[in-house]
């Protein structure tokens, strides 16, 4: 009953669809969370408390509450706070024709899932960046300033390259977390891989196959990120 057969092609297709959603969602999350995390990091290390205090609060709030609760809040709770018109717009299908391709506004669970994952991931990435910046010895900045470089030049050509190199391994760790965390969006109806495995299980009762294939796909994706990380680090000039 358990191991008797593999899944029918139809159900393998469902799992693959879910996997594609997981990959796209994680990739978009990582990209936007990296950008947002960078901005947050700048705010966090700013000298003026006008910038650093709110950012500190944001970071501690988003890092110290469960993603599941945050997703529930964005999907079920925040919707109730929005003005009727905004909510209505969000829930309507929208389609824009651009010169090369069309853009379709996704259903609300995708918007809420992406938004929630991005904020959560960005809060962690910001701290990894900060650790990277702090990992650069302060003497270097002073030396560069003494050589007559301007502040932005010091940042751009002295601190940033080193900070990025320091924070790359933990950054990849956060990308892996983003992939794994995307599984929680199943709770708000986003049809990613875990959701698909549950659907397949419901229809076929092949619990072992459904969870097994999903688990393998997750692990495969994580291994890919790991390999990509090693490749990038090998390419970096040694010093």
């Amino acid at each position, binding site marked *: *009953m358990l191991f008797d057969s593999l899944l029918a092609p139809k159900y393998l297709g469902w799992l693959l669809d879910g996997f594609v959603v997981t990959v796209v969602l994680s990739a978009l999350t990582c990209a936007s969370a990296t950008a947002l995390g960078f901005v947050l990091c700048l705010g966090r290390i700013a000298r003026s408390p006008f910038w650093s205090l709110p950012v500190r609060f944001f970071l501690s709030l988003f890092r110290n509450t469960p993603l599941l609760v945050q997703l529930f809040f964005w*999907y*079920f709770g925040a*919707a*109730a706070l929005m003005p009727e018109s905004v*909510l*209505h717009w969000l*829930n309507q299908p929208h389609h824009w024709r651009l010169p090369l391709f069309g853009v379709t506004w996704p*259903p*609300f*669970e995708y918007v809420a899932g992406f938004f929630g994952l991005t904020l959560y991931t960005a809060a962690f990435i910001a701290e990894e960046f900060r650790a990277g910046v702090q990992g650069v010895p302060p003497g270097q900045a002073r030396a560069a300033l003494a050589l007559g470089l301007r502040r932005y030049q010091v940042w751009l050509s002295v601190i940033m390259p080193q900070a990025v190199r320091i924070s790359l391994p933990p950054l990849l760790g956060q990308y892996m977390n983003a992939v794994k965390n995307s599984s929680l969006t199943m*709770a*708000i*109806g986003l*049809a990613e891989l875990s*959701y698909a495995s*549950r*659907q397949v*299980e*419901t*229809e076929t*009762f092949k*619990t072992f196959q459904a969870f097994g294939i999903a688990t393998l796909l997750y692990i495969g994706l994580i291994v890919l990120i790991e390999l990509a990380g090693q490749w990038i680090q090998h390419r970096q000039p040694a010093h």
Partner: protein
Amino acid sequence: MNKLRIGFLLVLTLLAGLAHADRLDDIKKAGVLRIAAFDSNPPFGFIDPTTKQTVGLDVDYGKAFADKLGVKLEILSTNPANRIPLLTSNKVDLVLANFTITDERAKQVNFSIPYFASGQQFIAKKGVLKSPDQLNSLRIGVDKGTTNEIVLREKYPSATLVAYDDTPFAFTALRNGNVQAITQDGPKLIGLLANVPDKENYEIPPFSISDDLIGVGIPKGETALTEFVNETLRELEANGQAQKIYDAWFGPHTKTPLARIYKIGDKS
């Protein structure tokens, strides 16, 4: 000689016990009947706000089984998707959670004779959903792991389905406008709507897309336990207890008055 005979008998009973080791005996031995019931679906299974205990129609049936066995009742909360895994992984002895009997499921678990009947219906904001033909063009909230989802996908392949962990989640999504209708068994929807503060904004359109019979889920191959459950259900109907349970949750003086269209034994 006597000792030998006792020893022999002991071995025999042990062997017999092994051969017949079945769930019904285990339950009696343990003194506990473990059932899975809903915790968010009035009036089938929900947490009473004052006592904080799980109560409801399904729970009352569970109590009747436990009472007849003379054992304690232990209730595990479940959502729709966890019902079959809970049985196959041996976490519970019975599932009493508005469990629709289907041939596919019957390959995985045993079912009792039906003790409730219902049909798959919908809730939508007033005026949105008038006929089943519209379903193909709507976004519809369903519960993960229900027959509702499978039936809807088969009969209305163009409908967009969004699956949630439990019916109230789906309803919140409906309320927020993320889906345009949600589907579940009629009586469950009536129970849900009865507890909504602004129920006048919603309606249950008067059509159903399937006829469902609800049974008790029992682990596969547990013949003695299935027999016991069936026998008890028939008894409950014969002595009027089943009617009492029904009236307590769907009777004319409840929040969810609903005529009883099905009696245990009408179908098998």
